[in-house]
């Protein structure tokens, strides 16, 4: 019972998703705050890369001797998708040499928020399940 709940892929995966979404939120908030700074270029975290690394980590987890831990994702400094900030939105370059599409930024923020809340809701459900299991036993 214990192993099936704690060792399930989902909890650590969801934790990573929440972590990533929170980091990305602060980057996107930076874009909104800096929208009127001349020459400011929009920044973003690489979602595709994060999902690829996460998928690889889940695959890796199927190997029983290698648990999915944050070590595979967060603690490695180089190539860590949570630190890899890049210029985003190669769109129109405005007269002040900034390239921020405010609509796109807000849309990205909303998507990010939905992803964050979705992951948390699933996580919460799992903990509720765990609570039920514990209370049944007592």
């Amino acid at each position: 019972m214990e192993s099936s709940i704690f060792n399930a892929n989902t909890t650590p995966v969801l934790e990573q998703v929440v972590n990533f979404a929170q980091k990305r939120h602060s980057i996107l908030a930076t874009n909104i705050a800096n929208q009127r700074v001349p020459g400011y270029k929009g920044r973003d975290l690489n979602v595709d890369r994060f999902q690829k690394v996460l998928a690889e980590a889940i695959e890796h987890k199927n190997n029983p001797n290698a648990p999915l831990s944050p070590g595979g994702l967060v603690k490695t400094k180089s190539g860590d998708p949570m630190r890899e900030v890049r210029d985003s939105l190669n769109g129109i370059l405005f007269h002040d040499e900034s390239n921020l599409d405010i609509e796109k930024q807000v849309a990205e923020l909303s998507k990010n928020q939905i992803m964050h809340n979705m992951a948390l809701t699933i996580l919460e459900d799992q903990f509720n399940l765990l609570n039920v299991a514990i209370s049944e036993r007592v």
Partner: protein
Amino acid sequence: MITSLDISTSGLIAQRERLTTISQNIANMSSLRDANNRLGPYRAKHVILETDNQMATTSGAAGVKVAEIRENDVEPRRRWEPNHPLAIKEGRWKGYVEYPNVDMTEQFVDALEATRAYESNVGVIEMTKNMTNQTLRILA
């Protein structure tokens, strides 16, 4: 998440500063003397913003700050008013009065833009609060 709040707050402060400057420009659009009673039309001011790395995180998020407030160097508007007590007495512009170089259209468009930018920062703060609430629900 707390950093996101700080970043959005820096955005709010920067945009409010812009609005204050615009209000000042509009309020002074007829000022012919400065605060020290020296003759000379008021000059429109512009707020220059820049990225503030002071609250930068490892993942590259950063705030915004007011770098400087610069005066507009456009020539003042001159109106032919020879009977005005402050009319220019001699030279090429004799009989003209110099008025501030505040362009109303420009100021209003700027004000509207600053308001929208302020609102979008408030929106981000709402999102941050929502996400933090959701995260804290795990503890409940």
